[in-house]
């Protein structure tokens, strides 16, 4: 994806992109759950979104369904209500739900209601409001998606160097810039390097020059996730246009429905010795668990300053939160878009680099906070881990409002649903609504709810929609709309 995005964006400017492909990592996720940035990427690359979905066992994703300890909730990509940016809509809703024991925010989210009913459709161009309210990502088979992007890169004449051995021999200049990388069959030189390996092969090798832990200021605190495991089950599920997160004590089990089967990823905060207990819990949640789970110890620490010298190390930062809520691709795409915005001239300016790293910190903070919030109900003490998150939770619990978002990593809607789902309930009513009497407020809200119900009723089932418009294909090439 990185090569495709870079090659495409840099093509008009005759800039060459080379790729060094490392041996496959057995822990790479087998499925990809994207957000709406997937459609954006297809648009940028000129790829046919429909073909990708068809070739990658794709299903649609309106958000994530959470099965918490005691509550269930949905976190959609789209806003609450029928139109975006409606002043005080969320506050009106919180107010009307106040005191209700089983308050269900989902009833005012068409995305949540459609997903829960197993329905899906992309609204027509004449209903941009509905398109927005049903903003979606997709679930894709990671390997097939990778092949498509690789073919795309070939079309753009990206030079590809696949290597079997991770031993790279690097040569730097006195300023610490990476000049060349020697591979078994070739020596590559480049002006700029993007390192997507988790191990930071291109950057961490030169400790004296690019010691990320020494130079990259302090590392972000660890998320409570310590181990993860993944597997694929053959069970097909065409009725779930969303990912699902199931809570167990000390972690989350993430489920991604593909047309070929169901992909599971388990994220646990327990130490290695307690993993058998985790496995037992998972088996009690779902039937389809392999006899032996392969656990991977997670490094959820990462450098705060990914851009050092002429190298952007995105592999480590992309794995920032173990890929639990945000996929690596999502994070890398966001970082590369920012990077392209600041595309470095030579010699690379210190201020550009600093600016990128500061912006990155904002993005990473939000990714981290959003992921960390998932562990609040497990009783984890988050106040020392993130002041920003504690403030955000306090302000929400008091006023039903959000502290300003620092980046595009998350949307307000996602925070509203997550915090409400976690059980936080605003204690103060909105004074802006104090002049609106309760019956008319209730009336307006119930009209929105009815509209959503009616629309969802009229939507096709996700499985039918896929069968009709997205039948699986095994065609080798995806159309590239120049």
């Amino acid at each position, binding site marked *: 994806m990185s090569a495709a995005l870079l090659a495409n964006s840099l093509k008009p400017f005759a800039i060459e992109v080379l790729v060094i492909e490392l041996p496959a990592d057995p822990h790479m996720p087998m499925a990809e759950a994207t957000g709406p940035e997937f459609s954006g990427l297809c648009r940028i690359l000129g790829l046919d979104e429909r073909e990708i979905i068809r070739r990658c066992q794709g299903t649609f994703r309106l958000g994530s369904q959470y099965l918490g300890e005691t509550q269930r909730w949905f976190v959609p990509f789209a806003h609450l209500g029928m139109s975006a940016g409606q002043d005080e809509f969320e506050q009106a809703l919180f107010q009307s739900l106040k005191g209700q024991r089983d308050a269900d925010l989902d009833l005012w989210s068409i995305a949540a209601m459609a997903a829960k009913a197993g329905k899906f459709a992309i609204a027509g161009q004449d209903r941009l409001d509905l398109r927005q309210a049903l903003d979606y990502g997709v679930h894709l088979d990671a390997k097939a998606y990778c092949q498509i992007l690789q073919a795309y890169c070939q079309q753009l004449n990206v030079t590809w160097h696949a290597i079997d051995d991770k031993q790279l021999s690097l040569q730097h200049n006195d300023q610490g810039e990476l000049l060349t990388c020697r591979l078994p069959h070739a020596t590559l030189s480049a002006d700029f390097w993007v390192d997507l390996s988790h191990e930071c092969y291109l950057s961490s090798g030169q400790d004296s020059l690019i010691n990320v832990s020494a130079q990259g200021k302090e590392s972000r605190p660890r998320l409570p996730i310590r181990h993860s495991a993944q597997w694929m089950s053959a069970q097909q599920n065409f009725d779930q246009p969303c990912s699902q997160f199931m809570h167990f004590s000390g972690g989350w089990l993430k489920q991604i429905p593909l047309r070929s089967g169901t992909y599971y990823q388990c994220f646990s905060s327990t130490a290695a010795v307690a993993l058998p207990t985790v496995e037992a819990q998972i088996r009690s949640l779902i039937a389809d668990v392999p006899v032996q789970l392969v656990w991977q110890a997670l490094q959820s620490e990462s450098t705060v300053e990914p851009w050092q010298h002429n190298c952007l190390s995105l592999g480590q930062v992309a794995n920032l939160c173990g890929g639990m809520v945000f996929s690596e691709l999502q994070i890398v795409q966001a970082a590369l878009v920012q990077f*392209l915005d*600041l595309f470095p001239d030579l010699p690379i300016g210190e*201020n550009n680099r*600093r*600016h990128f790293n500061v912006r990155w910190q904002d993005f990473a903070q939000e990714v981290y906070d959003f992921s960390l919030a998932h562990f609040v109900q497990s009783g984890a003490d988050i106040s020392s881990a993130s002041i920003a998150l504690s403030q955000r939770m306090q302000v929400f619990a008091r*006023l039903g*409002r959000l*502290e300003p*978002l620092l980046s595009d990593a998350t949307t307000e809607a996602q925070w509203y649903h997550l915090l409400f789902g976690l059980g936080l309930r605003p204690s*103060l009513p909105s004074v802006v609504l104090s002049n609106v009497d309760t019956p008319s407020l209730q009336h307006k809200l119930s009209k929105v709810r009815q509209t959503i119900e009616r629309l969802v009723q009229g939507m096709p089932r996700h499985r039918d929609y896929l069968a009709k418009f997205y039948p699986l294909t095994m065609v080798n090439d995806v159309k590239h709309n120049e």
Partner: protein
Amino acid sequence: MTQQRIVVLGGGSAGWMTAASLAKFLNPQQFTITLVESELIGTVGVGEATLPHLRSFNQLLGIDENEFMRETGATYKLAIQFPGWGEEGRSYFHPFGLSGHDICGIDFHHYWLHLNQLGKAEPFENYSIAVNAAKQQKYQYPSNNPNDISADYGYAFHLDATLYARYLRRFAEQRGVTRIEGKVVEVCLHQQSSVFHQVGDIASLRLDSGQLIDGDLFIDCSGFIGVMIEQALHTGYEDWTHWLPCDRAIAVPTERCATPPPYTRAAAKSAGWQWRIPLQHRTGNGIVYCSAYMDDEQAEKILLRDIEENPTAGLNKLRFTTGKRHKTWQRNCVAIGLSAGFLEPLESTSLYLIQIAIQKLLEHFPAQTISAVERDSYNRHMDTEYLRVRDFIIMHYKVNRRQDSEFWRYCQHMAVPDSLAAQMALFSEGGRISEYRQGLFLPASWLAVYLGQGLVPTHYDQRVTKLPSEQLHRHFEHYLADIKAAVDKMPSHVSSIAATQRRQSVDYPAAPRSLYGINA
């Protein structure tokens, strides 16, 4: 249920904007709103140039824009003209609008920097439709079609602040605000804590008549003096004079100008600058200066020398200290307007800061027992807003290239806040601007001022050099031709104002959230 008592002290723009907004939204059964002001003390009475955000404020209150124009003698505003800021004898505009559009995902100004280096570009401001309209004294509502070049700008107003306050007073009183005339002689604090209050919170205001006004939440709109926030609560003030050394102003109204231009003028002088704000019925003028480099007599002389019409009233002399209260919400008192802080009116930001303070207050409105959560969150928001405006205004001084006075040389060499230093370094290095998500002034504004004042980075995005320059040049020429065609079709500013005077009002577009129109 007991009513929550809100007391607003001050009847200037801040006081009446606050009272009108609270009256619009708060339920009179749950809240009482009292405003105390003293005619004896009066208001600053200046504050006439605004930002496009004032349109959202009016819209929120449900004020008809044409009625507002009639009632406040307002004219339209598309830009601010800055003569003499880069170099003496040169001038530029900071428009409420965009200049050019990006090409292949790279910002327009990088292409401009490239063509400019090749000697093939016109001044940057020429690529702004708002500037072209302003220069030709034309005005038309922006288009609602995002593909139309006429959608690339927003607009604000020049208004008579006293008339606006009067208009809002009527609005507020009609909605139940009680106005009390009188001078506050004492701010009484709670001596004992209760469920609702802590020791040291404000309990009541004592007037010179002896009347006591009790309240739960107090809004301090008492102007520079900060009767509650400072005199009573001793909140403290962050002094920014070392970055913004101007500390005095003299204002004088003059006769109306026959063809009021749709822009504010802020002309640099030897130790400060002079404003000219055209209204329908008069023209506002004033000089802002630094007393360490220019005495009052000199300032008065320059002001009267450079006004274009005859004065219609005496001089209004003002002193100020640029800065901000450490906390604009302290205990049960929220300071709004000049009592919260002061940034010179170079970019017409004060009414905006009042408006944003009101909006944030409504969002963070406390219950009878105030918690630190809403107070701290409010203060965080307001700190950011003030810092954004502060940095942008300092930048005007810092990047001046005048050699004619000690004052301007001081400004060139003064240290600036780290946040601004980082922003400027980023631009100098490669023409980039850090775009923040909260607060005023996005890249379009920074670019207008940087490039307008002659801070042209030598480095820019080198990708733009890969496109054939002839092709790029043609693209620029077409863009200019499109702007010219659009502006040619616009009516004059004078006739657009005249259209608002009729009762059957013209339709105006909804207020966008941005300073630069719907495309920003």
